[in-house]
């Protein structure tokens, strides 16, 4: 622990730059999937534990398309569209029937979905760790102490473009307005002539497409494996719990915060990288509990 601290702040402060960059890359992906989770959670009150598996499914789709020889500008739209339709199908088969149920039911049903998706991907692609190699150059800085693959920069740019597009879509388009209206008050939205069922289906499919996009970026800059989804699920849950629903700037800030936190934890002890989002989640829940119990009033 002390050695690592010395290394970080005395001997080679440049490593900080590398860690911060890595944290930003992780945070960008977390932000996409966490935004989708917050959207579905806020609009239809479904807690999607399969979020990470949608990400991994998008990643494997990109991997498969890349092995067919397609370039990245083609892969991204194909994955977006097919994940959109996959999400719509999942909505019709599973999500639609648990909409008005107890909240725990949505957790369990999406857990079953997550199990199913992991295993189907495992059957098709096998349990090996895969990555999409885009054959792009790698930049070095500070005497080779910091490496920045250009694929990561491209991924960061794509994430930013997707995020801006999503925000504009939600603010400006009629569908985005309908989604926001439904989130505020489903009954009033129905009275005003919005087809709630279609809005829900669209929201879930939209979330699935967002996860698919995040998955494409994951497959380019990190590695994918059928059982890696839980990392992204837990990360997204931690981010949404920390940021609160329907608070987009907070979601983005806490996504980058958690990205940085996991990378720094991973630097000290590699096993901690997976435990970090869980630790953040529990800390946030405890903190809320303490602040809420302080506000609690009782008649004595």
């Amino acid at each position, binding site marked *: 622990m002390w050695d690592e601290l010395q290394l970080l702040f005395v001997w080679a402060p440049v490593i900080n730059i590398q860690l911060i960059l890595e944290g930003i890359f992780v945070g960008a992906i977390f932000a996409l999937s966490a935004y989708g989770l917050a959207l579905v959670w806020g609009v239809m009150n479904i807690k999607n534990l399969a979020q990470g598996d949608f990400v991994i499914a998008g990643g494997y789709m990109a991997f498969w398309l890349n092995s067919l020889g397609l370039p990245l500008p083609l892969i991204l739209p194909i994955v977006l569209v097919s994940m959109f339709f996959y999400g719509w199908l999942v909505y019709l088969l599973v999500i639609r029937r648990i909409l008005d149920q107890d909240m*725990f*039911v949505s957790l369990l049903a999406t857990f079953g979905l997550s199990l199913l998706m992991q295993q*189907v991907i495992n059957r098709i692609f096998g349990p090996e760790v895969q990555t999409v190699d885009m054959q792009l150059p790698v930049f070095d800085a500070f005497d080779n102490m910091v490496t920045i693959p250009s694929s990561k920069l491209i991924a960061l740019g794509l994430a930013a473009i997707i995020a801006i597009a999503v925000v504009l879509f939600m603010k400006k388009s009629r569908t985005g307005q309908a989604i926001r209206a439904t989130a505020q008050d489903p009954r009033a939205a129905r009275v005003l002539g919005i087809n709630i069922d279609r809005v829900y289906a669209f929201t879930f499919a939209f979330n699935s497409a967002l996860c698919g996009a995040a998955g494409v970026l994951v497959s380019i800059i990190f590695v994918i494996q059928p059982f890696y989804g839980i990392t992204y699920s837990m990360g997204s849950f931690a981010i949404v719990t920390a940021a609160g629903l329907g608070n987009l700037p907070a979601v983005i800030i806490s996504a980058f915060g958690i990205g940085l936190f996991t990378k720094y934890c991973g630097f000290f002890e590699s096993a901690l990288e997976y435990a970090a989002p869980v630790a953040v989640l529990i800390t946030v829940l405890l903190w809320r509990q303490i602040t809420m119990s302080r506000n609690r009033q009782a008649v004595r």
Partner: protein
Amino acid sequence: MTTNINLPIYATLAVIGILGPIFFPAYTLSIAFLWVMVIMASTWDALGGQMGYNSLGNITFFGIGMYVSAIVQVSFFYEGGVGEYTSAMGSIKPEFTDAEYFIGLFLGILAAGIVGLVISILFSSFMFGLRGPYFAIGSLGLAIAAAEITITIDYVGGPSGILMPLFPGDIEFRSTFFYSICFLLAIASHILLRWLFSTQFGLAANAIRDDEDKAEAMGIQTLSYKRISWGIAAFFMGCTGAVVGNMIGFIDKEVAYPIPTFGIFMVAAALLGGKGTLWGPVLGAIIFHIIKDAAWTLLLGFQWIVLGIILIVNIVYFQQGIMGWLQVKFPERFGIVIDTSTTLVDSQRGDDAR
């Protein structure tokens, strides 16, 4: 439920429990895991089904119990202590006499249960402020955190785990012995829950499930009720963990904290049988275990896909469970009588009883 329905069920279960391993000795350990599933599902239901606090983290106590019993069993009669035993990675094979082994095992199981109970009381001081899905996610986080913390402790072997002391006696006696412990634990947990939920405790628990704020306003000490329920679950999960650890013979993170398998199976079994009933989890655990073992042997390679589909279909399309379905189908068998003078109230109660 009246006794005339219960008697044949108990008789059938006793026949399965006693004659099963006699006629099918090859399946003894599989039937032992059946009782393990029954314990897990019933004790999960004490908090999850009856009280509405759906815990995904009961498996924490299973793992803690497993490690506690290993520490007790090894350190009780081996002078070097657990640290030396685990750092040798199984090359040290301490010679236990029969009496030493069985006393150690008994103390280990007891200690596992008590430590589970104590830890559940510690956890309950902050966990029960979380409600609904937050409790589920929080307890799941607890289980994951416990698993991650355990492998960083070198005293209990870290990631490489602990080899349990060897059982004195031949392999058939070994499986029969552990089978009997599992069976007895299942009976004990069932009798305890049956008695507990026939008292006012059951009414208070259901009141907490239906509306916690109102229950609190009515003067029910909700926190202590939740503590008792979780404590029972933790005690039995700890004991079961200790037995399963000895039954498998080797423990590490994957064996001790099977979050995606047993951690979810117990919830799925309770839901399949019908949560919030006494018999639902027992029935659900038996059916679930049979399906699971059949899938493992007949559909090897696709077993997880089958289980995922069962989980989704069960939760999405068949949520009330077997007992809930039976209650709707034959309400008079469950003592649900429609009183015409208070039709509205009673029919609502019939719905709630699911």
